[in-house]
């Protein structure tokens, strides 16, 4: 069995699940492609999953309404054992990357993290992934009968529905009690297009000089271009922007068609979150700023003059 753990929100399968399905189909291993749907009131998700997988295992319980790392790990490991899964694919979001190691330990299996390629080579799974803050591509080979893999979101095209719908089965699970109690939630909200989905990102750093500067320069340019808004760690730390906008090692990783860096110096931790963008544009008054080393187009100048000039020009 090739076991995929479905990710879903608002009754729909996530894009990353469809990307994982592409991986499952193309990696060159035999086995029923099985989507595991965990959650509460997930009938529509299960039905959608059946369009893509050969079989769908559904655990639809109130206890699964809220994600928990220990619960998910127990569920996935149990299904993997019972189904004799040789490959377990999990989405590379925050939750996937934090429960997949637990699954790997439970199954005494190797873990491949954030894979951008995955293929069977003479019975062993070989994958490429980024290391050294996304500056190096490392290829690894897993040994043993079972491998757990997290798939980097956005690295594969989403799968098309299969020609025939798969069977749905109920999954019986022995679930542990979660020990991490959630006492409050802050969700990221924005009317703007999200960093993950945007083709264009306008991002700001300390060079914008103030929260107002960020609004007048970064937000204004982003709105003019219909782009997403990003921020560096420095200004998120300073409280000028919410963490949801942070791009970098400890924030989000983006690969838009164009990334416009406004007043950003280019610390390597920030670069690791955006250096795969197709085009990088940087505006900074410091000619020595490291960002200019990875920019396709750069202006050495005052962002307070250049960005408004760009906005004016775009309005024409």
């Amino acid at each position, binding site marked *: 069995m090739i076991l995929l753990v479905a990710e879903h929100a608002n009754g729909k399968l996530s894009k990353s699940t469809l990307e994982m399905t592409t991986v499952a189909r193309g990696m060159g291993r035999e086995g029923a492609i099985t989507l595991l749907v965990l959650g509460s009131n997930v009938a529509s998700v299960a039905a959608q999953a059946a369009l893509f997988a050969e079989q769908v295992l559904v655990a639809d319980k109130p206890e699964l309404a809220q*994600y928990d*790392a220990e619960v998910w*790990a127990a569920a996935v490991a149990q299904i993997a054992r019972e189904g004799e899964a040789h490959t377990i694919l999990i989405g590379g979001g*925050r939750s996937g*990357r*934090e429960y*997949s*190691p*637990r699954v*790997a*330990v439970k199954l005494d299996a*190797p*873990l491949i*993290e*954030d894979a951008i390629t995955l293929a069977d080579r003479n019975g062993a799974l070989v994958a490429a992934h*980024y290391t*050294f803050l*996304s500056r*190096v*591509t*490392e*290829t*690894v*080979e897993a*040994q043993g009968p079972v491998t757990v893999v997290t798939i980097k979101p956005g690295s594969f095209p989403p799968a098309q529905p299969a020609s025939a719908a798969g069977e749905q089965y109920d999954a019986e699970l022995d679930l542990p009690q979660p020990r991490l*109690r*959630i*006492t*409050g*939630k802050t969700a*990221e909200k924005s009317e703007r297009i999200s960093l993950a989905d945007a*083709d264009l990102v306008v991002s700001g750093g300390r060079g914008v000089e103030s929260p107002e500067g960020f609004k007048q320069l970064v937000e204004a340019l982003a709105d003019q271009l219909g782009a997403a808004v990003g921020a560096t*760690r420095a200004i998120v*730390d300073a409280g000028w922007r919410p963490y*949801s906008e942070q791009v970098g*090692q*400890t924030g989000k990783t983006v690969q838009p*068609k*164009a990334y416009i860096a406004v007043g950003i110096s280019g610390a390597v*931790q920030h670069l690791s979150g955006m250096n*795969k963008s197709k*085009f*990088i*544009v940087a505006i900074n*008054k410091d000619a020595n700023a490291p960002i200019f*080393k*990875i*920019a396709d*187009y*750069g*202006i*050495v*100048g*005052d962002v307070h003059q*250049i*960005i*408004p*000039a*760009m906005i*004016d020009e775009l309005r024409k």
Partner: protein
Amino acid sequence: MRILTVVRQVLDAEESVNIQEGAVALDGRKLVLDTMDEYGVEEALRLREGAAAGAEVVALAIGPARTEEALRSALAMGADRAILVETETPLDVIAVSAVVAQVAQSEKIDLIFCGGQQADWDSHALGAATAERLQWPQATWTSLLALQGGMLSGKHDVDGGSESFAVPLPAVVTTQQGLNEPRYPTLPNIMKAKRKELRRVPLTEYGVSAKLRVVGVEVQVKQRRKNIIDGKDASAAAATLIDLLRHDAGVIG
């Protein structure tokens, strides 16, 4: 109470990445205690200075002999003692977690800190894998932490936002930026660290087998155009830039 902080020695952010003999060259480069792990050391020290007064802070690293310097940095920040599990061969994170778990058990640890991610293997997994081995709960990407009566509470990042949580000890906590600001080691503390215990143990003391091996390493170099424009005349520069984006790059209509 005893707190374990796991640290890794990585290339300094300033250093460029070059491949030599099938691996990233580290010889002669500046190597530092990873910043994400530093948050862990700092948080452990804060707990010792506050809610967990009297706790012992033990720093642990698994790596080659030179990793001692990273442990010395942790000791210089204020950790009480350190353990270096020496191995010349790089290990994957699942294998490393076996060592961490065994150390945690033999040292009777109540709380483990490690970085949410490190700047060499880019892995997010060490904390979670270790927690599973110990059958402990975990709080990953933690940006705020407090301890009271054996219960940890705080804030951590999840997909699409953040959550406040409470979890009982013993537990594994992985760090997120913003958790604290790591202290510089003061000069007196650098000198005091010289006399703190740093125990070296060979990896062979732990039954660990790696199931993942590295078969290729390549530096990703995307050729950038590096078209630098002088920005003194703001409107001219802006116009040039927009033109390039429109016609050269084709990203705006």
